[in-house]
């Protein structure tokens, strides 16, 4: 379902979005900025995939949205983690760690 541009590993966008929202509610643009900033501009979030992901997460009730006014008084939709979203984040993080460790081990293995 998710069409990646190759800049974000397939399947990790949801995890990144949840992680970005872990500290505070944010609007869509803020999320892309946050991810790019944290990844030191390595990960480029394609907005074409961000919004479908946000809507999907909202439908799954991992996040929850509301319209708010920004600091420079613009109207924007802010997304926040729900309780089940936090659980999902933890679960996905654990999963990610397991997988990445496994992948790293495979990659670190020396050929016999």
């Amino acid at each position, binding site marked *: 379902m998710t069409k990646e541009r190759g800049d974000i590993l397939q399947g990790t966008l949801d995890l990144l979005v949840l992680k970005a929202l872990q500290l505070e509610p944010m*609007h*869509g643009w803020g999320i892309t900025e946050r991810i790019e900033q944290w990844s030191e501009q390595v990960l480029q979030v394609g907005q074409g995939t961000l*919004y479908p992901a*946000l809507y999907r997460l909202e*439908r799954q*009730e991992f996040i929850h949205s509301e319209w708010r006014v920004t600091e420079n008084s*613009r109207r924007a939709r802010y997304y926040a983690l729900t309780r089940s979203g936090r659980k999902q984040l933890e679960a996905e993080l654990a999963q990610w760690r397991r997988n990445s460790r496994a992948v790293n081990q495979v990659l670190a293995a020396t050929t016999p």
Partner: protein
Amino acid sequence: MRWIRESFRRLRGVVRSDELEQGLDDEIRFHLEQQIAKHIKAGMAPEEARRQAYLKFGGVARTKESARDELRPVLLQDSLRDIRHGIRALRRAPGFTVVAILTLALGIGATTAVFTVVKGVVINPLPYPDADRLIVVQHWASGMNTKIPFTMSGAMLSTYTDENRTFQQLGVWSRTTASLSGGDAPEEVEGLRVSQGTLPALGVEPALGRWFAPGDHVRGAPDAVILLDGHWRRRYGADPKVLGREVLIDSRPHTIVGVMPEAFRFLTETPEILLPLRFEPAELTLGRTNHYGIARLKPGVTLEQAAADIARIIPIYLQNWPSFPGVDRSVFLRAHPVPAFVPLKDSVVGSAGEMLWVVMGTIGIALLIACANVANLVLVRAEGRRHEMALRSALGARRGRIARELLLENLILGLTGGALGVALAFGGLRLLATLAPRSIPRLQEVSLDPAVLGFALVLSLLSAVVFGCIPIVRHAGARLGHVLRGAGPSAGVSRERHRARNGLVVLQVGLAMVLLIASGLMIRTFAALRAVPPGFSEPNSVQIARLSIPAGEVADPDQVLRMQLGIRERVAAIAGVSAVSFAGREPMSKAPGRSVIMVEGRPETDEAVSGTQPIRWFRYVGPGFFRAVGTPVVAGREVTEADLLEHRAVAVISENLAREVFKDPEAAVGQRIRETGESPWREIVGVVGDIYDLGLQEPAPPIVYWPTLMEEFYGAPVQLQRAVTFAIRSPRAGSEALLSEIRSAVRTVSPNLALARVSTLGDVYDRSMAGTSFTLVMLALAGGMALGLGGLGIYGMIAYSVSLRTREIGIRTALGASRRGLEGMFVRHGLVLAVVGVIAGGAAAVGLTRLMGSLLFGTSPHDPAIFGLVALGLVGIATVASWLPARRAGRVDPMRTLRGE
């Protein structure tokens, strides 16, 4: 559980999607603006900043589209796609689709039509408020030798009304005919006389005016009449100012006090007017139970409580009233009447209920066969699509998804068939209404309503599930390797894969067996009934019509008799009329009088012990009536004009009565009988053949035929039949030409007389068989359908089996199998299925036909001839149905098939 939660979420998505959709535009705009602002801040030119922002965003429209995809209720969307897909798939197989839909439409349509009738007639037949509190008040003469309940008298009504604690209302009613004159044309209509409690018991308020008031039931008060809707529209053009108008009924002025609403029905009667029943308290006695009783129970009172209440009152009634003139009180005491109440609904529905349930069951079985047939078709189709299904699941389609698509296809079939079926049912109801016997109450009023449509919908869905599940179970999870390896649809067929289809064919044959046996039994019943000599001959050439001369018109009984004889003479002069006479009522008509008779010289038949004597039917005849209807005179002679004109005390009795009492018809002539201990003796002048007065299914009752004019009958100085049925034998019976000649003959005698209830004796005869004919037609239709579908099922099974096994056949031929041997192999397959079906169906029929026992006549529900014939016929048809496709097996060219693979 998870999918339930998910569905809820998606459903909520439907509700919220509008709001989200709108937000999406704003959100994307905000995002782009932020991005542009960021670029500008970094020192980019505004134009470039905008370009970069859009570039980075990557296709606004596409983003919106894919976001929207997330919003949309996926299940619904998928379903819509599946439905489109399903319709496309069905359109690719038009032959299959048309046959399946038509088969279902027929099955569902027929079942819906019959259900409509059953619902309207059996489940919900009484159009009265709280109809379950209405009962028929009648009695058993438990001390008498009779199976027929007796009804109510004025004296009973009076005592019961005063003493009962369980009735809210109690009323009695009886039929009457009324001559309407004073208008443009004299007219004779059917009416009812009702006592005071009758209309309040039914509880239907008049559309105009009022019910009868207590004063209307007092003799000598001004006469009142209530019109029924049909009469009001026909004769008064639905004039709302009709109340208070006077109308001449039986030559006496009556005031119209009310008009009943259109929806009002009086049980199964078809009156045009209602008249108040009037009892003179001074004239009430025991006996005279000439009225039907109806009561509305108080809320919460049961039928049994009411019966116990009346059982308590009956001794009071027997004590309080004078005995019937000429009959000792002890006769009534010994008759020992006890309440025999039944719910009004049972009484109204009567035997029609049983007949309709049988028809309903029959049609239901036919629907089941239709479903089996469609299931078979679906299976064949699914076999052909195994390759497609396997390929699809190899390409990643989930098992559930394929199942859902198959189910949807079946639902589309089921619902389309159902919709078409409802249309068919609509037409079928019209047909049923003309086909069905009049004994089915309220048939003209049944119609499709929401409950029926709901029934049809449930039926369609159920059918879809029934015929749809088997292929789904078998194919949704087709192991792909298994199928793909098999190299397409012509691969060898495993035994296991055939089991479902074999089972369906056996089911079809078995059900067809049940239906055909039921039809066969009805055909035998019909033939047996046709073979019963009704007691009259060539009824289709006997014209009958009622004619009444009211007392207000001509008071003197002798003058009325002379008018009746005069009419007889004038009608006899009409060309082509070979015989004509009149009688109190035509044969096979409702409600003859019944009582005991006493025989001269037989003290055991005297009143003192007459309580134990059998009940005889009383009818009244004019001169030469038996010649007119074609009943043979077995001994002696008929009643003559002279008997009537001279008031001779004579009687004619039926042959079975003569044999029972006098051993021999000849011996009966000259003997004397009388109806009470104080009446004059009346000489038996003749014995006539038995007439099946109660219908052909019942034994002919013993009948006493009295003259239409008698002296001292039951103590009345003169008893005269003022309303008589004329029977006119002519080859032109039933034609308008003859009728108009009869009418002008009547007019020469009196211009104020009108003919009523014009028909032929043949109609009366047909009506007595109407229930049987109707059941027969319905069963034959269902049976024919079952036979056709069953044969088709076997044919399809064998044909398909042949087409699947061509390779095997080719190999066998190549190895030297004979053509005949190959054909035999397939015919044997068909025969095995048929025989198993016949045995199973026969076993089921043994149990099921017992349910229709009461509809049968002259045959046992387990008639071995019918069972044998149907079994043979089915096996024969199965042989033909398997042999036709089996021939193809013999013609298979081994080289071509083997090379073809």
